[in-house]
């Protein structure tokens, strides 16, 4: 087990190093940020001064090693646009994104699993068919458009929920969160629902196929023969077996929720790091783009490792590293 974790960490570091070279080389090619940051009427001297100040006049390899050296100390350079450390800027926005992604994941789990179970236990019923069809539709719905429609219905027409921003935040262990106040929850509702949509469908589909398969297994027949109530058969025996793949997928999907938050945050003006990324791409704010990607890569690596460990804990049949 320990050997497995160590090997995985080494692999993750290699992936991280590889990504950092790739990202740095790629982002370097993004055009010249000086053109955007400097007043267009400035002369050659001023442009040269700004280029030197940002360290952009040095060779690419040197820029990369300077970047690595600083990155090792947790310094990803100063944002060109805000003139503050990029890493601080990103970390400041991270709680908002994590809160949004967590809320979306909770919605997906609490809605997707029961719906999927229902559809899997009674696949031929009207409800089962509707859920199955609905989940296909949910996959095809363009998330960003659904976000606009949510705003249209719940903010513009009904006027129930706010369409943008995070609302007032409360400090929880030094981190600002929205979930502790009613107003914050009202602000969270639409973006979280929007972000959850794809995963509700995904988890419902997964739970449905898992439940359908489980229902035909001997242990379900045995549990019924024992005289257990249908409620207990489904709620305990079937659910337990459905949960293993669901937990794995939900874990991996948490990463993609963070990535897709880029879209949701842009629609609902949610002040998270996804919106920061889009803004930074628009003004070619290199340090922030590179910093965001580094942080996301670290997050993903951590999530994947956690999911692997969780799966082996949930299902003792899965032996980690046995095939390597």
């Amino acid at each position: 087990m320990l050997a497995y974790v160590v090997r995985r960490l080494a692999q993750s570091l290699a992936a991280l190093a590889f990504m950092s070279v790739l990202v740095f080389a790629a982002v370097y090619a993004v055009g010249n940020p000086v053109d955007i940051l400097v007043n267009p009427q400035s002369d050659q001297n001023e442009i040269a001064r700004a280029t030197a100040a940002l360290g952009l006049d040095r060779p690419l390899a040197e820029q990369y090693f300077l970047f690595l050296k600083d990155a090792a100390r947790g310094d990803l350079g100063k944002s060109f646009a805000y003139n503050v450390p990029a890493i601080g800027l990103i970390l400041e926005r991270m709680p908002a994104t994590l809160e949004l992604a967590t809320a979306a994941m909770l919605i997906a789990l609490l809605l997707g699993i029961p719906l999927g179970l229902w559809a899997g236990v009674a696949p031929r019923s009207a409800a089962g068919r509707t859920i199955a069809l609905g989940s296909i539709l949910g996959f095809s719905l363009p998330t960003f458009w659904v976000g606009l429609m949510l705003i249209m219905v719940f903010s513009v027409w009904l006027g129930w929920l706010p369409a943008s921003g995070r609302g007032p935040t409360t400090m929880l262990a030094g981190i600002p969160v929205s979930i502790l106040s009613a107003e914050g929850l009202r602000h969270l509702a639409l973006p979280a629902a929007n972000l959850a949509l794809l995963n509700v469908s995904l988890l419902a589909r997964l739970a449905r196929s898992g439940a359908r398969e489980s229902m035909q297994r001997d242990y379900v027949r045995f549990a019924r023969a024992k005289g257990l109530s249908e409620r207990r058969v489904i709620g305990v025996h079937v659910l337990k077996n459905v949960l293993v793949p669901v937990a794995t997928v939900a874990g991996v999907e948490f990463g993609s929720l963070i990535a897709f938050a880029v879209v949701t945050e842009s629609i609902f003006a949610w002040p998270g790091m996804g919106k920061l990324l889009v803004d930074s791409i628009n003004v070619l704010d290199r340090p922030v783009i590179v910093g965001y990607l580094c942080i996301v890569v670290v997050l993903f690596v951590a999530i994947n490792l956690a999911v692997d460990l969780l799966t082996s804990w949930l299902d003792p049949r899965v032996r980690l590293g046995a095939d390597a």
Partner: protein
Amino acid sequence: MRPALALLSVMLLAALLAPWISPQNPYDLAQLQLVDSRLPPLARSAAGALRWLGTDDQGRDMLSAILYGLRTSFAVGFAATSLGFAIGVSLGLAAAWFGGWVDALVMRLADLQLSFPSILIALVLLAVFGQGMEKIILALAAVQWAYFARAARASALVERRKEYIEAAIALALPSARILYRHLLPNCLPPLLVLVAVQAAAAITLEATLSFLGLGLPITQPSLGLLIANGFNYLLSGHYWISFFPGVALLLAVVAINLVADRLGELLDPYRAHR
């Protein structure tokens, strides 16, 4: 299958024939009248023409804009998927055929890429390439190649052990010929389903990126850009400017996905009889 296929055919045809069937050329500024701006659906323009789906802020007929937008969206999806297919399948076949370090290199790269959500990869690539039609096609193809490479390798690994490949080898045919003329055609069926699924994904992803302002330029508005434009007027209740382009996008993607689903059942004997 039938309704989905019919819907898809109609939409493809409408996109193809857009310049001939749309009520106006939405990008000929001479045809736009500002008095017609933001007309609701089924209103008549100042000149008396019926605007089925309303008009946008510049007085552009939404139906025409959607038909042209569909054209762009389909074109981008088709081009990106073809390119991704060509690159991915070639690499996947090569990986299965040559094995060894080629296999290891291609598959590790694919694994690495697939461990990140497609939107993230596309965002980074667009940040690097900049905006433009060719650039977004390149970015989408770069997102897709890994799926094709993985699927092509999987089916090629099964096929290469069969006798017809042995026969081709015995005839001392060149590798490229065996790969593309013998191996590829027999690996195609499962890949076809993936082509459809990926085309739908590419269309959605392009729309999403264009919505974020990072995709197509304003001169070639795809459905995503139409929706983004409508967002500006949503809060004032002019829902139709982003609602209808979204419906068109949804219908196109659902139709493709349903056709892909059915295609998968038809091509997979185990699934068909379940």
